[in-house]
């Protein structure tokens, strides 16, 4: 991952979107300095939060931030909970670490927070073990753990990916609702543009470890600039649009060891010409608060004659 740079304002929801392997989760983990070797944060990087640089913070201080000022919701509610403790215990643990509450107080706080997440019968539920809960309920537990300290920023790493669709909608509504209540900022990491459209105000599109486009959500959906963003949008299924197979962007994200020279998307890009081969594109200004890492910003006429379709219907050939 390189040169990823973005900001999240107070009370704002920013989305990071991209295919698997784009570096979304690594970005999220880096913010809390949780990446495991061989991954590391380059010296000279800055992660600024409430006036402090998280990169240079001591271990004790960053621990005070984690779960307290910035917390995280993980994508797998099945495996993100410890199987040998009750869920109440696990939610309370966060309050015990950060607020220094007694066992009793922390437990009460945990039950309250579980109630806020819409968990029915929270007093009884708190005494249950993770394996006794459904996926949606477990995700509520993770949300309670993330929110019990009323953090300034919540990083939600694909919070709904592992859930079925009806539960997904409930969980998203819950997040949006709690965000309003607590005034928390959310960094929503997802590969689902539907989630982005529903919850965020600003979107960052990542591809092969870098930011390729950033724009307010309405602007992005109205005028996607980067061919990758455009491809993602065309890959979304549309209601009322009868189609047997979904569109896909041809090819896959290259491995980090194998990033092409020049533009990293050019091998999958229908507009690609000599310039992207030679020159790694910078983030061009392409509109109101809208930037895009594509040379089309300066040679827009090239968009008119793609040499291949932007998306294809897999297995059938060109659409």
């Amino acid at each position, binding site marked *: 991952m390189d040169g990823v740079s973005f900001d999240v304002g107070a009370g704002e929801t920013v989305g990071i979107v991209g295919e698997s392997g784009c570096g979304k989760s690594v970005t999220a983990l880096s913010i809390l300095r949780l990446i495991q070797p061989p991954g590391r944060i380059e010296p000279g990087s800055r992660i600024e939060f409430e006036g402090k640089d998280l990169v240079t913070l001591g271990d004790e201080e960053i621990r005070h931030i984690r779960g307290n000022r910035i917390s995280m919701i993980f994508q797998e509610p099945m495996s993100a909970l410890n199987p040998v403790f009750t869920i109440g215990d696990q939610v309370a643990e966060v309050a015990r670490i950060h607020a220094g509450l007694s066992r009793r107080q922390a437990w009460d706080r945990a039950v309250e927070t579980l109630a806020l997440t819409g968990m*029915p019968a929270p007093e009884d539920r708190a005494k*249950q073990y993770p394996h006794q809960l459904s996926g949606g309920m477990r995700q509520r537990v993770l949300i309670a753990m993330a929110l019990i300290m009323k953090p300034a920023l919540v990083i939600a790493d694909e919070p709904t990916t592992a859930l079925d669709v009806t539960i997904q909608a409930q969980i998203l509504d819950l997040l949006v609702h709690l965000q309003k209540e607590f005034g928390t900022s959310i960094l929503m990491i997802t590969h689902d543009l539907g989630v982005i459209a529903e919850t965020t105000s600003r979107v960052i599109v990542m591809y092969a470890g870098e930011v390729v486009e950033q724009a307010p959500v309405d602007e992005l959906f109205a005028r996607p600039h980067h061919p990758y963003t455009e491809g993602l949008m065309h890959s979304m299924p549309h209601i009322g649009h009868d189609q047997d197979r979904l569109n896909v962007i041809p090819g896959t994200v290259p491995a980090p060891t194998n990033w092409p020279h020049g533009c990293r998307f050019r091998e999958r890009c229908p507009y690609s010409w000599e310039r992207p081969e030679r020159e790694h594109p910078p983030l061009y200004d392409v509109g109101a608060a809208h930037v895009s890492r594509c040379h089309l910003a300066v040679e827009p006429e090239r968009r008119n004659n793609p040499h291949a379709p932007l998306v294809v219907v897999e297995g059938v050939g060109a659409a």
Partner: protein
Amino acid sequence: MPGQTQDSAATSVARPRESPLAIGVRRILRKPSSRVALFVLGVIVLVGILAPLIAPYDPAAQPDIVALKDLPPSLAHPFGTDPYSRDVLSRVIYGARLSLMIGVLATIVSLTLGVAYGAISGYAGGVVDALMMRLLDAFLSIPRLLLLLGVLVAWPRLSIGALVLFLGLTGWFGLSRIVRGQVLALKHAEFVTAARALGASRRRILGRHVLPNLVSPIVVAATLGVAHVIVLEAGLSYLGIGVPQPLASWGNIIQDGSDQIATLWWMALFPGLFMVLTVMMLNILGEALRDAYERR
């Protein structure tokens, strides 16, 4: 379904609190073989604990070394007497006490060392882990019995405490391997990353998120470990370098009759029977525990 709230909430609330430990215990108790094992072990442990109350004679008393020696089983001496005229039944009862105690204490020593060593190695990772594991390979390459023989021969008339210590010191290698493997796997479990993301310290993660998840393999290793130590102790005592006289352990009762094993058959049969029974039951229980916890 009308009236149904979010994902079947109402149905499972009624279920009782089920810790993974409790589920394991229930699974074990469902098996008749492990119920029998638990019962038999319970009786033997009780016999050991109550030894002073139920033993008919003083296990060390030699009432008449001429008239009462080498007596076959009779009503007065159900397990017969030994060449020193001591009552074998009383000695077997006291032997249960000592053998079990040595087994349990030595296993506690092994568990402590094995868990600590394995957890540190696995959690530290990298060079520390590599060094600790090579050192462990070196320990493992020496047979345990040989190690013990060496120590005990060089150190005659060892106290029981020292014997327990050495049995424990030589018994933790295998367990620490298992623990290290589990810790390595758990270190990257998502709930550990989640705990870190929520601000848990290294110590808290190790103590609260890693070790509690190791309880089941440790319980299994402990059960099998006790059985192993009992056999080892008996072997050492039989060789005359384990439990010192006049104390009774199953091993040294057999040893007392070993030079006339064909005629003094009761001296090998009864303590041997108790030992085999205990070890067998421990192994059955250990296997059942393994099945219960490692299935999941």
